[in-house]
């Protein structure tokens, strides 16, 4: 499949359809959608800016797909990460994985998200009533990523 970094929105329906099109070998399809929450650390967040490192982001996502394929039996993999400006409930990231095996599909999808969180060069800046603030990396994300090593 493909990885994409884009400002425009994606359609879960279209992305799902692409994963299963002409695919009778894979019984399992696992997908993750990351959306903007309206609350974080107690303040109401009314907007989000997502900055990235153009070029490296695409490379980092492609590497994630490669590493996942080395580890699990996967059919199709698609990763989309949006950048730019977001409002509450906007879709930010999509990861879709198909496999003949349910366990492989779940593991690969979660691995990609966990590892993306610590290795792909995206940075979030939240807009709250008290102003803009860069989001700090969370220890929990580091720990979740380390489980896969």
């Amino acid at each position, binding site marked *: 499949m493909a990885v994409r970094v884009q400002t425009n929105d994606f359609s879960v329906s279209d992305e799902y359809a692409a994963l299963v099109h002409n695919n009778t070998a894979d019984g399992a399809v696992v997908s993750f959608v*990351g959306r903007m929450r309206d609350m974080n650390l107690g303040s109401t967040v009314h907007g989000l800016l*997502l*900055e*990235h*490192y153009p*070029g*490296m982001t695409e*490379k*980092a996502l492609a590497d994630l797909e490669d590493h996942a394929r080395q580890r699990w039996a996967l059919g199709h993999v698609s990763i989309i*990460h949006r950048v730019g400006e977001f409002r509450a409930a906007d879709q*930010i*990231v999509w990861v879709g994985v198909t496999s003949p095996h349910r366990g492989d599909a779940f593991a690969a999808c979660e691995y990609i*998200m966990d590892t*993306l*969180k*610590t*290795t*792909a*060069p*995206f*940075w*979030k*800046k939240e807009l709250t009533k008290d102003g803009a603030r*860069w*989001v*700090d*990396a969370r220890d929990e994300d580091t720990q979740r990523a380390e489980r896969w090593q």
Partner: protein
Amino acid sequence: MNSVRILFFARLRETLPQAELEWPWASPGSVGDLKAQLRAQGDAWAALDGNILCAVNQTMVKLDAIVQPGDEVAFFPPVTGG
């Protein structure tokens, strides 16, 4: 080529005096050396002291990785996408 191109992102990009620059780099040396040279420009560069990640030619590396003349080097805070 006797320089490297340096990029900063996110909080670093906003905090440091420059968002990107060309830096003289005539022969191979470590990321740690390069970072120390940048930091030595003065306290305006103190943001480099924290927990800062580095990528050379768009691949994440550690401080002991070697930077060649002509490389693209990026410094940035821990990532928070997804």
